[in-house]
């Protein structure tokens, strides 16, 4: 129906120093372009001392139309002309009074030189990294005190919450972690066979897989998967609770959010991640065994015998000992990022991303530190 409506038009009638402007049609938002153009032309071209805007034939006026008309009157006034409305119907008159043109001071977007911005951003990032570190340390302290409180007073231990989290982290995470580890074990074995063949040292592929998987790959793969699966979930859960003031609700009930929300998750991670690492180790070795059988013709018996010679309990322990550290890193970063969520959905998304990126980065860095440490003590 809006299509059949008359466009807004105005007829100018110049007589004796007075310009009569007769407005017709609909002065509404759907004709915003025409409304603004005609009034702009009027302000530009008007020269007479007095302008009368005759609204008696306006069929419809909305806030946009009224705003532009009143703005026009105002701008004509600034040009030194006197402008008035006439013939406005009651409802149009009320609307014109309601919108009453006034300038809005719009804050201009502060733009500086791009080079300055560039360095400012670098500086900001450095400051943020420092702040992250300080916050992380203080948060770690909070978590440790909460953990200690729970240990000293076991009745505060939330077994149900830990069990629930353990189910989410370990039980539901098992299939995907086992599958990925199996595939990576198989791929490493296959490449090992191809390269070692050149030296006629195929049998050593078992050593390669055994040591690589148990010392590094198992725990790394598991940590990365857990950071992606569970770390992101922690951040999202805690973050959306923060967003909707649920964390504040806990606080005013005298409950410590760290103790209620974060300790159970970190405890579950501390238990779950080593378990998953073990599963990952086993299935990566299995993947390796399948490939050495099919590509290298090494039977399972021989595989196991060589494996026994190649690895010691310490090889296994080196991998396993890292698992709780990885769990702590993932848990702390995920919770900290969750607590940093502000009010908006966008900020939630940003913190989840940053939680996953930071955990994976830190997991790899810490793994490197461990490798250097074990090399230094010749373990």
């Amino acid at each position, binding site marked *: 129906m809006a299509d059949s409506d008359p466009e807004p038009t105005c007829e100018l009638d110049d007589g004796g120093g007075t310009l009569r402007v007769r407005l017709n049609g609909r002065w509404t*938002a759907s004709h915003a372009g025409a409304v*603004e153009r005609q009034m702009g032309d009027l302000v530009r071209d008007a020269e007479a001392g007095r302008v009368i805007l005759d609204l008696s034939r306006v069929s419809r006026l909305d*806030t946009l139309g009224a705003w532009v008309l009143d703005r026009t009157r105002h701008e004509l006034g600034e040009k030194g002309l006197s402008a008035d409305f006439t013939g406005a119907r009651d409802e149009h008159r*009320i609307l014109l009074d309601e919108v009453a043109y006034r300038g809005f001071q719009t804050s201009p977007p502060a733009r500086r030189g791009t080079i300055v911005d560039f360095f400012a951003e670098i500086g900001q990032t450095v400051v943020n990294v420092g702040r992250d570190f300080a916050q992380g340390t203080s948060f770690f302290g909070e978590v440790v005190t909460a953990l200690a409180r729970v240990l000293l007073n076991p009745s505060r231990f939330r077994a149900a919450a830990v069990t629930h989290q353990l189910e989410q982290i370990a039980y539901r995470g098992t299939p995907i972690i086992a599958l990925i580890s199996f595939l990576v074990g198989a791929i490493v074995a296959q490449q090992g066979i191809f390269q070692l063949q050149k030296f006629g040292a195929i049998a050593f592929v078992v050593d390669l897989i055994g040591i690589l998987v148990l010392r590094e790959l198992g725990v790394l793969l598991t940590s990365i998967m857990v950071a992606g699966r569970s770390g992101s979930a922690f951040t999202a859960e805690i973050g959306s609770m923060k967003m909707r003031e649920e964390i504040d609700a806990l606080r005013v009930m005298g409950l410590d959010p760290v103790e209620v929300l974060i300790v159970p998750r970190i405890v579950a991670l501390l238990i779950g991640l080593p378990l998953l690492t073990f599963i990952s180790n086993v299935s990566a070795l299995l993947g390796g065994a399948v490939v050495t059988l099919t590509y290298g013709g090494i039977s399972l018996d021989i595989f196991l015998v060589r494996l026994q010679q190649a690895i010691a309990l310490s090889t296994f322990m080196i991998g396993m000992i890292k698992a709780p550290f990885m769990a702590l890193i993932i848990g702390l970063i995920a919770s900290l990022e969750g607590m940093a969520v502000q009010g*908006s959905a966008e900020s939630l998304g940003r913190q989840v991303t940053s939680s996953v990126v930071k955990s994976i980065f830190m997991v790899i860095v810490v793994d490197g530190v461990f490798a250097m440490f074990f090399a230094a003590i010749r373990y």
Partner: protein
Amino acid sequence: MAARSSDPTAPNFRETIIRVRDLEVGFGPKTVMKGLDLDVYRGEILGFVGPSGSGKSVLTRTILGLVPKQAGTIEVFGENLDDLPPEEHRRLERRWGVLFQHGALFSALTVKQNVQVPMREYLDLSDRLLDELAMLKIEMVGLKPDAADKMPSDLSGGMIKRAALARALALDPEIVFLDEPTSGLDPIGAGDFDELIATLQKTLGLTVFMVTHDLDSLHSVCDRVAALGDGKVIAAGPIETMLASDHPWLRSYFHGKRARAVMG
């Protein structure tokens, strides 16, 4: 195409802008409303009351097409919503504005950007006009200009309501649906809000569908009141009709202690 009402209580037999017939809505096995009839006339302010949890919000959301209905028809602007092709439906959505019970502002945008979302989508405005018009709406609903650049998470409950109203009014709609617009406002602010609604109704010929628990609003601005109970409209008419009704819930609502305090 304008549907004429045959309801003798209709004010001057005005055009029915929303006509709901025999509506049934439920969630799973739970029926929220059944056999509900409702008329809203063009240019009126309809106050919609009912106990908490009786389905006022659900009815609003059903008319807006956000909740599926099990049976019945809903006509808005004389057109049956079920028969409309999607693009017609979109065109129609342009003609109504909605204030949700909890504001539903976009949390990633400032108040001003929130108000500009429908303007950018539907209108072809110059940047200057876009800015001015958004500021105008923000001031019209009684927010200070410095609220324009705030994020929704930095607003108080009452400010969220006002900002959401500014967004609902962005396109000068013909109908606005207000779900408890004055709850969470201080009494003076609520009074201003009512006055604003009344002014807009007078100037823009707005039709207002207002869910409210605010007895002051019902008395001061509503042309008609409809009450929801047991999944039906139990009474509809000017406030005098409601006061005269002998339905137990209406009696305790309009003649209870709080009602007497309001009416003096």
